[in-house]
């Protein structure tokens, strides 16, 4: 039952992240939303890996790898957002800048 709570929380976090990724136009928001989706998926994964006898270490290892990958992507994305703001004065993509 406890696992179900975590798994469903994960699913809900994914939903929240997806909403943020689509509805938010500021790119820092989108980077956070992306991380929210990722961590929600991982939570779901972790809960699934804990269902058996003892904790399955493979999902944990995959999640740690995933966290580092997400960090790498976030770092590059953040750099791009700053570069975008430097060159065009906005942290939103060109065709969406009107929404700010």
């Amino acid at each position, binding site marked *: 039952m406890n696992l179900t709570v975590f798994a469903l929380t994960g699913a809900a976090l994914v939903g929240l992240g997806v909403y943020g990724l689509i509805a938010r136009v500021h790119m820092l928001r989108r980077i956070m939303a*992306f991380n929210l989706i990722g961590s929600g998926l991982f939570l779901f994964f972790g809960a699934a890996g804990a269902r058996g006898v003892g904790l399955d270490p493979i999902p944990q290892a995959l999640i740690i790898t995933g966290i580092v990958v997400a960090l790498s*992507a976030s770092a*590059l994305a953040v750099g791009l957002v700053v570069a975008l703001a430097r060159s065009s004065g906005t942290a939103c993509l060109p065709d969406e800048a009107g929404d700010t």
Partner: protein
Amino acid sequence: MTALISWLVLPLFAALAAIALPSRARLPAALLGVGLTVVASIWLTIEVWNTGAVTVSLGGWRPPIGIALRADGLGAALGVMTALVMVAVALAARHELAAKVAGPRIGFGFWPLMLLLWAALNAVYVARDLFNLYVGLELITLTAVALVAISGKAAAIAAALRYLLFALAGSLLYLAGVVLTYAAHGTLDISLLAARTVAPGDALALGLMTAGLLVKTALFPFHVWLPPAHSAAPAPASALLSALVPKASLLILLRIWFEAMPELATPMTQSALASLGALAVIWGGVLALLQSRLKLIVAYSTVAQLGYIFLVFPLAGGDGAAQPWAAGAWTGAIFQMLAHGLAKAAMFLAAGIYIAAIGSDRLGDMRGLARALPMTGFAFALASITLLGLPPSAGFTAKYLMMTAAFASGQWAWALVPAGGGLLAAAYLYRPLSAIFARDTALTPRPIPWAWQTVPLVLAALSVALGLLSSIPFEFLQIGRPEQAAEGL
């Protein structure tokens, strides 16, 4: 096995060397790495040809504990195509992106990014583990995004950011599918998954993975990120992005549909994928027709050309072994991947030469360039023949195989896609060609070294030669071919 491992680690070593070494040693190290990796890829191809698909369990741990790699005909063939494109790009970049010309920043960064991209592509071509494929895809994404942004222009930064946004969304969708797959089956190995008992969530997992990969492959309607990104990069980078990067996600699509979960394919899903492909052919072609910059035309043509490959889903196998061309569509789709890779790289490198010569890629400025740079014009024309699917190019082999499969399986309507797409390609490629070959010259071009001019010509010639000599690659692609490629989904 040694060949496979060298082919994987050599570009990585070369990339690390390019980062660590001082600037004067960087280019020699990178070029040495390129050369050695090419040798390794040829070695691997010979090994696969002689002994069949090469399988390795990394670290001695067999799946599901460890990760397996398997170089089959498909993976090795893409590896050779990648090696050819990489050599060409390296030779062009030596002129175009040298630190003296492009500044110390690009002179530093291009080489490790290119080599890391190469390593990641190779890793994806042979990976048998869905999560390992995810890691490989992410390495491809990050290097590709960096290559888009490398010019530093405002448009490039925006295009790179948009690309990253789409690519990350695609990665997450794919990852969601991977998570569901592991949760249900306790393994991520493609071969083990093929033997699994189907779980109710598998269709969802396959759907999520497919959606993610479609975004990364820029299939219509997820293509909006591709043209600005591919046209904003410097030409050698564009060549890598257009010729190679979408092939990785396409390959994974083939792997999961044909090898891991073939039993989940339904006529409706197959038709849906192929319909999107057909729309991509039309939409990409029409938009290419409307562009006035060479690189944008070439980039939109990528959207269209990738569309053909999706016909493989309903067509693979056709009537199965009863027809002499069983597996025709599957092999045709791979021929299309190879032909497009070579031809598209040639086109972008040719565009790079034009930009270096006159500082612009507007069609109006390019008038009459064939006079000063005949080899480049010829290269562009040869590459066009491949994209049009005219004989004797490899594009024709692909088109022929797909069309015969369409008729042989009684789904002749799909044959309209390559037939019509070829005409559309003729229409959108005619404009740059007639500009290049016009008599009046708009601008006086700067001289371009002879060695640089030959690079796109050789690539374009290879895309034609692949068609002329297609019987050997055809046979090679059958090595380790999944049964479903012959029998249909």
